[in-house]
């Protein structure tokens, strides 16, 4: 049997509940139906990132530029355990002199491993597995923002996604890439989903004076929390084009691509640190925050660089937590936790600092902080 979830929350006014209603289907049925709505329409952004960089000649996130080579981004991900469909959204701004046709080739690949340097294949633990494309978009309107949305099933074991954008016709800016659960208009019953969600069949208590049991009351909580905790939210993002190519300039090893990197120009100097990212994220009314950090950092030095960066998270109550970041060229993880004032406009600030060894540079491919409340 399939259940159609409501398109919006139906919230009872307090006085509709707190007047000792007769034992009946309502308002419990309403509350349970709301959990179905959550499953179908609770759609936090799993990924939300804008490409960072400093060179318009190479980075499509700055000014509109024709970059005929594919631009690749490797981004950590923490998908739902239910194998949901996700909407992948690219926001692009083509700008060709005098207008004209603008087409793009888009591709998405995924892996369940931690090494982004592996080849392509069909075994996700050790290869990049194709998820979409490469496919060319229909021509986009010039000089306006265009959003292309594709719905794809994201495997629950995925650890990283590889986005490839190739301009076919001319200059463009890549403004934003977002991934969020697709709307679910039909929920299959009666299985309990891997997330812990158990769909509510309205026919169970649709009759007057139907029995009400604690399982159904408790299901309001377990269903709601299962959905909430299963759908990780992207609290912060910092993403740059992926490259492993290095060059040398003035005796310093660096990544020759228009990207932000921390470089240390003297072999005789000490390690050099630099802030590369600062931002603030809203956490309405949340008193505690636990962030699950996934990141990829690389550096041109020949060995692994432990402590190549620092992630600092500060709550609006002044609490601070830091996570030391290692440069391994592979997917790494950690946890940060702070408190906030718990106000409707509460927020946390995030800051990323990178360190470079003398005569080398350090480069951050991507850092994502995922929020899964209570987990």
């Amino acid at each position: 049997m399939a259940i159609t979830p409501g398109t919006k929350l139906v919230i009872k006014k307090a006085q509709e509940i707190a007047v000792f209603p007769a034992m009946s289907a309502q308002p419990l049925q309403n509350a349970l139906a709301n959990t179905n709505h959550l499953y179908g329409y609770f759609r936090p952004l799993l990924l939300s990132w804008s490409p960072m960089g400093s060179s318009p000649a190479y980075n499509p996130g700055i000014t509109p530029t024709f970059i005929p080579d594919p631009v690749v981004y490797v981004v950590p991900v923490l998908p739902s355990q239910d194998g949901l469909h996700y909407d992948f959204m690219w926001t692009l701004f083509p700008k060709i002199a005098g207008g004209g046709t603008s087409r793009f080739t888009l591709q998405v690949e995924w892996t369940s491993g931690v090494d982004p340097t592996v080849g392509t294949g069909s075994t996700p633990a050790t290869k990049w597995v194709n998820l979409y494309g490469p496919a060319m978009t229909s021509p986009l309107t010039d000089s306006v923002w265009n959003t292309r949305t594709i719905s794809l099933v994201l495997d629950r074991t995925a650890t990283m996604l590889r986005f490839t954008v190739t301009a076919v016709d001319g200059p463009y800016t890549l403004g934003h890439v977002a991934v969020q659960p697709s709307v679910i208009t039909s929920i299959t019953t009666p299985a309990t989903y891997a997330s812990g969600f158990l769909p509510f069949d309205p026919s169970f208590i649709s009759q007057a004076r139907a029995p009400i049991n604690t399982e159904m009351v408790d299901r309001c909580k377990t269903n709601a929390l299962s959905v909430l905790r299963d759908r990780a939210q992207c609290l912060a993002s910092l993403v740059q084009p992926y490259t492993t190519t290095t060059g040398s300039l003035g005796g310093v090893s660096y990544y020759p691509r228009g990207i932000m990197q921390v470089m240390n120009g003297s072999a005789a100097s000490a390690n050099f640190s630099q802030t590369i990212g600062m931002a603030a994220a809203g956490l309405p009314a949340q008193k505690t925050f636990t962030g699950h950090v996934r990141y990829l950092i690389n550096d041109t030095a020949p060995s692994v660089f432990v402590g190549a960066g620092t992630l600092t998270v500060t709550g609006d109550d002044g609490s601070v937590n830091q996570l030391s970041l290692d440069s391994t060229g592979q997917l790494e993880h950690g946890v940060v936790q702070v408190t906030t004032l718990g106000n409707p406009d509460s927020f946390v600030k995030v800051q990323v600092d990178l360190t470079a060894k003398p005569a080398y540079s350090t480069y951050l491919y991507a850092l994502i902080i995922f929020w899964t409340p209570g987990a």
Partner: protein
Amino acid sequence: MARTANVQNWAIDGSAAELANHLCGDGPNVAPAATVVLLMSADQIVLNVGLSYCQTALMCENNTTQSGTTREYVAVIPPACNHGILAATRVGPVVSDGTIQAPTYVGCDHGSLLGATPNMDPVTLASPKEGAETYLGLPSGKCYFTPDIIDDTWVAGNPPGTRCLKLPEDRVATNVTIRVTNTAGHGLICNRLTGNIETL
């Protein structure tokens, strides 16, 4: 009565289950008085979860020399959230004390990376605060919100760049598109979008 999203208070501590066990044991039926308590708890938990969206901090575009740079991105505001949205989109260059740190070793491969003319020019902020962040909405930048914003007037007394937004009460869509134009070439577009939530 105003309800605000507060999962930490209501949902994580298992209020509904604990109340159920305490008041009703494990029996199949619940007394009317206990039902009131339980349903209030259960209803509130569902509401709180439905409103529990964070807003992503976007760290990007660390370049103070670029002018006219525009980004457009999608933010999520839950449908039940229809009143008193505050939005503050901020930009802040990499700074420590009001000026950008000596940028000798930060930049890109323009060929001047290691030379005397780095890609990032030092910029003194007009009113550095909190690590010298500044806010879009100042003359240096603009931000736009689409669709559904029916009131985007500036709010006196709030930090520069803060706008008070009111969304249509019958809104179903969750996505709000935000466009940021960086006309003065400050770097590092950030996002902070929070709101008061009233449903009753």
